[in-house]
C-alpha cells in the first residue's frame, strides 16, 4: 500500500515536472469529465479521457468540440483540417505540448493536432492566459498539454473501431505488457483512411480529402518507487497522406499538367522522446526532471501548380530542478532549456531554409498559503539566434475571497518567430498572389512577434435546489507589440504578410454556467465575445473569420451504472456562431458571413466493462456553407480561392464505433 502510494506520488510529481501549482490538477476518476479546481493558481481546465469520448472522432484537433474554452474552425475548404483557437487567437499563439514537450510547432502547426489519436490521450490540461515559463517563451494566449496513457497503469488490450457516413474509418489498438514490477511497455497502433470521394455540394471538388494515416507509438516506462526514479522512452512513427481537389483528379495522370486541379499533402514524422525523473526519497518535495526530444517532420505537398515542402529537424531539452524554500508553502522550479530547429523550406521553389537555436534559463517561484491565496511568479532569460536575447516574465495569482469562489489574475509576455507559410497553409488553397512586403531579407524578413496577455477570472460554485452549479466569467486581453499579420483585406487577388506598424489586440469575454439539473443530467453552457482589432495595411478591421459572438451548450445524461457496468449515455452539443468578417475576395461575397448553428449528438451503450458501442451524428441540422470554393469552375484562374471557410462544408454526418477492453 505504502509502495503503491509513493509510486503514485512519484508519477504525479514527474508528470507535472516543475509546474507544481500551475498544472497540478490531480486527475481523479470521479464523474466530472471537465474539471476546474478552485485551488489551482492558473485558469486551468482538465479534460479527462471521458470527455474525449463525447466527440465523434478521434484525434486531438477534434477533441475540443465539447469544450467552451477552445474554438474549433475549419482552416480551408480543401484539406478538411480543423484549427483550434483560444481567446480569439489561432494555434500558433498557443503552446501545445505533449507531456510537457512542445509538440505542435513550426512545420507541424497546420496539421499537427490531427497527428495525435484521441484514444492515446489520458487527459488534456488547458490553461488560459500567459502560462508557465518552464516550457518556453512562445505561448501567448494559452497552453494545451496532453498527457498520454502511461504504460504502468494501462490495460492489457484495447480496441476501437469507427466508421462514418463521410467514409472515414479508423482503428486503434493498444497493447500493454508489464515486464516486471519496474518495467512496463505499451504499443499503440492507429490507422485511418477515407477511400470514398464525397461531393455533397456538387462543386466538383472533394468535400473532404481522401487519404490515410498510420501512426505507431511504443512507450517504455520504468518506475522504481523506493529509489525515487521514473523514466519514459517513446518511439513514434507517423505517415499521413491526403489527396484533395477536383473529384476526377488522378495524381499519376494530372499532376502539374494544368487540366484538372488537385493537391496532395504527404507527411512523415519520426519522434524519439525520453524523460527521466528523480524524487529525493527523503525529500518528496525535491525532484529533478530531464526531458529530451528529437523529431523529424517532413511535409511534401503541392496545390495545383503551387509546391510547398517543409522539413524540420528538432531537438528539445529541458532540465528542471524543483524544491522548496524552508517549507512547502514556498516552492520553486529552476532549470535550463535548449532548442534547435533546422528548417528546410521551399515555397514555389524558393529556398527558405534556416536554422534556429536557443538556450535559456528559468526560475519559477510558487507561494501557497495552504488556504486561500497562491501565486506563481516566473521569469526566464533566453538567447535565440534570430530573436536575440530577451526576458520573459509571467505571473499568476489566485485568491478565494469566500467559500467556493476563486478570483484569478494573470499576466505575461510571449515572443516567437512566425513560420508564416507553415502556419497559414490555407493561403495555398487558391491562387492569391503572396506578398511578403518590400523589405524582404533573411527568412521572411519578419520581426519577432511579441505580445502581452492579461487576464482576470472569477468562479463561484453554489447550489440550486440542492444540485451543484457553478458560474463564472473571464476577461482576457492580448496586446501585440509586434505581430506578423496576414492581410486578407488589401486585395481580393493577394494575401500579404507584414510587420505590424499600428495597433493589434484581442479582447475576450467568456461567461460560463454549469448545472447538474437532476442527478446524472449535466448542463454546460458558455457565451463568448471576441473584440479583435488590427491595423492592416490599408484599413483597420477585426480579424477575418473570427466571430464576435458565440454560444455553446452541452447536455449530458447518463443512466445509473448497473452491476456489470451496463449504462446508457446521451450527449448533445449546440454551437451557435455569430457573423464573421470575411476577407476581400476576387469574386464578390458579402462582407460578413451569416450566423449559424451546429448540433451534434451521441449515444453510448456500455454493455460491460469490456464492450461499449456508440453511435452519433454531427451537424444534425445539416447546415452547409454555400459555395465554399470561389471560382471552382476555373481552378487555374486568378479567382480560385478555397480559403474563405466560416461554416461546415460537409452536411449531416453519422457515425458508429465500438470500444473493446481487456482489463
Amino acid at each position, binding site marked *: 500500500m505504502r509502495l503503491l502510494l509513493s509510486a503514485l506520488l512519484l508519477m504525479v510529481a514527474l508528470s507535472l515536472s516543475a509546474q507544481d501549482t500551475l498544472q497540478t490538477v490531480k486527475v481523479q476518476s470521479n464523474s466530472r469529465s471537465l474539471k476546474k479546481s478552485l485551488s489551482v493558481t492558473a485558469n486551468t481546465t482538465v479534460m479527462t479521457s471521458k470527455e474525449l469520448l463525447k466527440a465523434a472522432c478521434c484525434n486531438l484537433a477534434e477533441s475540443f468540440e465539447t469544450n467552451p474554452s477552445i474554438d474549433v474552425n475549419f482552416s480551408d475548404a480543401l484539406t478538411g483540417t480543423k484549427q483550434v483557437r483560444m481567446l480569439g487567437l489561432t494555434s500558433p499563439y498557443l503552446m501545445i505540448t505533449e507531456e510537457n514537450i512542445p509538440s505542435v510547432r513550426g512545420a507541424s502547426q497546420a496539421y499537427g493536432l490531427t497527428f495525435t489519436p484521441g484514444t492515446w490521450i489520458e487527459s488534456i490540461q488547458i490553461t488560459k492566459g500567459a502560462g508557465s515559463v518552464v516550457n518556453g517563451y512562445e505561448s501567448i494566449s494559452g497552453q494545451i498539454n496532453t498527457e498520454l496513457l502511461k504504460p504502468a497503469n494501462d490495460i492489457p488490450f484495447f480496441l476501437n473501431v469507427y466508421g462514418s457516413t463521410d467514409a472515414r474509418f479508423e482503428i486503434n489498438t493498444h497493447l500493454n505488457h508489464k515486464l516486471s514490477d519496474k518495467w512496463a511497455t505499451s504499443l499503440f497502433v492507429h490507422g485511418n483512411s477515407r477511400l470514398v470521394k464525397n461531393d455533397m455540394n456538387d462543386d466538383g471538388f472533394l468535400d473532404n480529402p481522401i487519404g490515410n494515416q498510420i501512426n505507431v507509438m511504443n512507450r517504455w516506462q520504468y518506475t522504481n518507487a523506493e529509489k525515487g526514479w521514473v523514466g519514459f522512452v517513446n518511439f513514434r512513427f507517423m505517415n499521413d497522406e491526403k489527396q484533395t481537389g477536383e473529384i476526377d483528379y488522378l495524381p499519376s495522370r494530372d499532376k502539374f499538367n494544368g487540366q484538372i486541379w488537385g493537391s496532395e499533402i504527404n507527411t512523415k514524422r519520426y519522434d524519439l522522446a525520453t524523460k527521466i525523473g528523480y524524487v529525493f526519497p*527523503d525529500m*518528496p*518535495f525535491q525532484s529533478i526532471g530531464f526531458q529530451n526530444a528529437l523529431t523529424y517532420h517532413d511535409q511534401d505537398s503541392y496545390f495545383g501548380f503551387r509546391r510547398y515542402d517543409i522539413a524540420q529537424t528538432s531537438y528539445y531539452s529541458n532540465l528542471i530542478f524543483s524544491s*522548496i524554500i*524552508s517549507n*512547502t508553502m514556498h516552492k520553486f522550479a529552476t532549470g535550463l532549456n535548449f532548442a534547435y530547429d533546422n528548417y528546410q523550406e521551399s515555397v514555389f521553389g524558393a529556398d527558405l531554409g534556416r536554422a534556429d537555436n536557443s538556450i535559456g534559463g528559468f526560475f519559477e517561484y510558487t507561494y501557497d*498559503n*495552504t488556504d486561500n491565496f497562491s501565486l506563481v511568479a516566473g521569469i526566464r532569460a533566453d538567447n535565440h539566434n534570430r530573436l536575440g536575447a530577451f526576458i520573459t516574465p509571467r505571473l499568476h495569482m489566485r485568491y478565494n475571497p469566500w467559500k467556493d469562489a476563486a478570483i484569478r489574475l494573470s499576466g505575461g509576455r510571449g515572443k516567437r518567430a512566425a513560420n508564416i507559410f507553415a502556419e497559414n497553409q490555407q493561403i495555398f488553397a487558391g491562387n492569391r498572389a503572396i506578398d511578403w512586403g518590400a523589405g524582404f531579407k533573411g527568412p521572411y524578413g519578419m520581426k519577432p512577434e511579441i505580445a502581452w496577455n492579461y487576464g482576470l477570472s472569477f468562479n463561484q460554485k453554489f447550489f440550486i435546489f440542492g444540485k451543484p452549479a457553478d458560474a463564472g466569467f473571464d476577461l482576457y486581453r492580448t496586446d501585440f507589440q509586434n505581430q506578423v499579420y496576414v492581410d486578407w483585406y488589401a486585395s481580393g487577388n493577394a494575401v500579404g504578410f507584414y510587420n505590424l506598424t499600428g495597433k493589434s489586440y484581442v479582447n475576450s469575454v467568456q461567461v460560463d454556467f454549469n448545472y447538474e439539473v437532476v442527478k446524472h443530467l449535466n448542463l454546460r453552457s458558455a457565451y463568448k465575445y471576441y473584440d479583435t482589432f488590427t491595423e492592416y495595411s490599408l484599413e483597420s478591421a477585426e480579424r477575418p473569420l473570427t466571430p464576435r459572438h458565440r454560444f455553446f451548450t452541452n447536455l449530458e445524461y447518463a443512466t445509473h451504472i448497473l452491476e456489470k457496468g451496463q449504462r446508457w449515455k446521451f450527449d448533445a452539443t449546440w454551437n451557435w456562431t455569430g457573423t464573421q468578417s470575411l476577407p476581400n475576395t476576387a469574386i464578390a461575397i458579402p462582407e460578413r458571413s451569416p450566423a449559424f448553428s451546429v448540433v451534434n449528438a451521441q449515444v453510448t451503450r456500455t454493455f460491460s466493462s469490456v464492450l461499449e458501442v456508440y453511435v452519433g451524428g454531427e451537424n444534425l441540422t445539416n447546415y452547409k456553407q454555400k459555395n465554399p470554393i470561389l471560382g471552382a469552375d476555373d481552378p487555374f484562374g486568378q479567382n480560385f480561392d478555397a480559403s474563405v471557410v466560416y461554416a461546415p462544408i460537409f452536411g449531416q454526418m453519422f457515425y458508429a464505433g465500438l470500444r473493446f477492453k481487456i482489463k
Partner: protein
Amino acid sequence: MLVALFGMAANAQEKKNRNAKYSTEVNGNCDQCKKRIEKAALSVPGVKSAVWDMETRQLSLIVNEEKTSLESVENAIAKVGHDAGDKKATASDYENLHSCCKYDRKP
C-alpha cells in the same frame, strides 16, 4: 520491538536528521481543519512539509531536527485547537474552533 523503535529514534536524534519523517495522530474532521492543522505545522520553523489525511487523521511531517522537534510541532497544533499526539488543546482553544471543526475529543 518497542525498545528497538526507541533506540532508532534516539539514534536519529543524535545524527540530527535534516529531513526526518514523522507521522502523528491529529484530531480533526473537515477541510477547514486540514488547512488549519497544516498551516499551524508549517508555521513552525524547521517544518518542511506537513500533510494531514482527513480519513486516517495522520499528520505526515518532514522536519529539520536541527531546528525543531515533533514535540514543538504538536504543541503548535494544540495551540490552534487540535489535539496532536499526546498534546491536548486547551478547552478555550477548542471552543474557539468553527462549529464544523468541533471534532469528538478523546478523553
